[in-house]
């Protein structure tokens, strides 16, 4: 096992750090305060190839690798959780399923624009009645034989990037089939829907506890008509496509959680050296030292899981690894998100009263951390995935 970054990975990490420090960090507090989607940052990231990091140059990507993508989400999330999830949802939940399942025509139509950041991507699976029970889908898609169009009806909620996205992967029910045991179940398929499609609209914008700059909205489809060739992957294979997409997405969210934890620790290390009580800096107290040590060790453990999952996904993409990375992604997300929540809470405690004010970034980081235990599969779902594989 080799834990060293390649020359390119080390250089890309250096670039991300400079970019995060100069372009992202100065906006983070204001983006949170005003619940503002940082469009200018997305434009800058697009120019640097950060909206299509691990896709090959032939489809418009930057030709880098999965670990470089993970490090982008991590480094941005160190200073701004909102910016981290914009890249993650766009890349893992929209560009990736098109890259992995799209026809040559679909890839040509969407990937260059998604990778260049001209278009932003989103993913619609969750519905008011279908959260962890993702098979409880109510959105339906019916093929109109006369016009050869799919007609979509239904709604999606909590959709990341929704207010600014141009392309959406939408999961919908396309009929009823019998499962292996002969029971009737929903046949689920995936579709590519464009923002400008007739009958498609973006609804209510959610007011959230954290990642407040991220645009989280409802999607509404009322007789939304799309051409037949917008079916993504095979008809009836949409649920598997969604689950596989989420495996990738979880690595992104794990990277976001990791970044939030690291960012909080960085802020805290600087603070405890400055803050004086009882005539000395609070870094001189062993409670502070032990807290920092424990948090640092936990963060490194989480980082290894996140990077390991990224490397396995890379192996699958390169064809050198055959089996899926579902379990590694679930383990990474479970531990990294728990670490983020735990570390930000403990960091805030070290900040004391000042940490509770919005003059310091630590309370924002604590709010941002919580979502990583919830979206793209709650921690409980990750445990179902991990134990499911153990007990299979």
């Amino acid at each position: 096992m080799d834990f060293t970054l390649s020359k390119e990975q080390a250089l890309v990490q250096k670039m991300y750090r400079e970019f995060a420090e100069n372009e992202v960090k100065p906006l983070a507090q204001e983006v949170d305060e005003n619940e503002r989607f940082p469009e200018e940052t997305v434009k800058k990231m697009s120019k640097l190839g950060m909206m299509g990091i691990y896709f090959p140059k032939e489809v418009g990507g930057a030709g880098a690798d999965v670990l470089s993508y993970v490090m982008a989400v991590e480094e941005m999330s160190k200073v701004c959780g909102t910016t981290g999830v914009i890249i993650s949802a766009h890349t893992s939940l929209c560009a990736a399923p098109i890259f992995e399942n799209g026809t040559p025509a679909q890839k040509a139509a969407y990937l260059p624009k998604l990778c260049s950041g001209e278009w932003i991507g989103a993913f619609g699976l969750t519905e008011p009645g279908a959260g962890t029970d993702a098979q409880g889908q109510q959105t339906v898609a019916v093929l109109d034989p006369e016009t050869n169009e799919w007609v979509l009806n239904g709604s999606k909620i909590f959709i990341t990037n929704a207010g600014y996205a141009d392309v959406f992967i939408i999961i919908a029910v396309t009929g009823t089939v019998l499962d292996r045991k002969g029971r009737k179940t929903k046949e689920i398929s995936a579709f590519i829907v464009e923002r400008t499609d007739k009958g498609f609209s973006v609804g209510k914008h959610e007011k959230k506890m954290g990642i407040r700059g991220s645009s989280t909205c409802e999607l509404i489809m009322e007789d939304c008509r799309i051409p037949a060739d917008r079916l993504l992957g095979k008809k009836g294979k949409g649920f598997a496509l969604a689950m596989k997409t989420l495996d990738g997405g979880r690595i992104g969210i794990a990277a976001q959680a990791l970044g939030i934890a690291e960012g909080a620790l960085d802020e805290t290390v600087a603070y405890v050296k400055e803050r004086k009580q009882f005539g000395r800096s609070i870094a001189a107290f062993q409670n502070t030292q032990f807290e920092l040590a424990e948090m640092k060790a936990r963060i490194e453990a989480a980082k290894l899981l996140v990077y390991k999952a990224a490397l396995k996904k890379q192996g699958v993409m390169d064809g050198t690894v055959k089996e899926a990375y579902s379990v590694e992604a679930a383990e990474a997300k479970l531990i990294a998100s728990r670490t983020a929540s735990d570390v930000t809470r403990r960091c805030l405690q070290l900040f004391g009263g000042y940490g509770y004010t919005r003059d310091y970034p630590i309370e924002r980081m604590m709010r941002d951390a919580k979502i990583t235990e919830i979206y793209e599969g709650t921690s409980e779902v990750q445990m179902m995935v991990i134990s499911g594989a153990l007990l299979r």
Partner: protein
Amino acid sequence: MKAIVCVKQVPDTSGKVAVKADGTLDRASMATITNPDDLAALEAALKLKDATGCEVVVVTMGPPPAEGMLRECIARGADRAVLISGREFGGSDTFATSQIIAAGINKIGVAEDDVIFCGRQAIDGDTAQVGPQIAEKLHLPQVSYAADIQKDGNTLLIKRMLEDGYMMVKVQTPCLVTCIKELNEPRYMSVGGIFECYDNEKHPMDVYDYNALKDDPLIEVDTIGLKGSPTNVFKSFTPPQKGAGMMLTGDAPAADLAGILAKKHII
């Protein structure tokens, strides 16, 4: 047409400055960065590339690890690089350095419509001599302290920043321009650029050692390296920080000033 950019790897003087017993900088123990004015020079060249599609060649003189800096310049958008490196060149002062770099540029070749960009000065020595000396050695016109550059055919219109104003200068190519930080905002390396900057087929990096340059008339044993350098470093130090100034805005600033000076026992 091409733009040749001279860059230098310098110690990060925002960190701790280490000095060796002989008074010269202990470069090995300090973190390195690309000299900030040189990044402005690179950005000026890349802007010219954006506008004209010209080739951008970065050149530096330094030890082998300077390759890392050259690769970073490629990741920002330069096309290829030249590393001038050899034991014989070690210890060169500005006089010797400019001869060696001028010889290197001779080897790269300067065409009628080429422009050479340098940073105004490096943050380690602050001499601002190497750029102008390269121009003299190559018998090229030079414009220093460029804050704005417009290209029109084979002439450049350059705004030169002076202490109390600016000067507009028109210059014929080939020429050498030294740039100041304020000229532009250097672009970041791009992800795509980083992932091909070590690809020698797309972005070759030539290494010129002593043997590659020794036949150039500029290179003579007694004009390069420590021996050929007229400069002897007496001492290196970090100058003490100047305290913040104070503006007197009251109705009677003269009286206020006299009061402050009296308090400090100066008058």
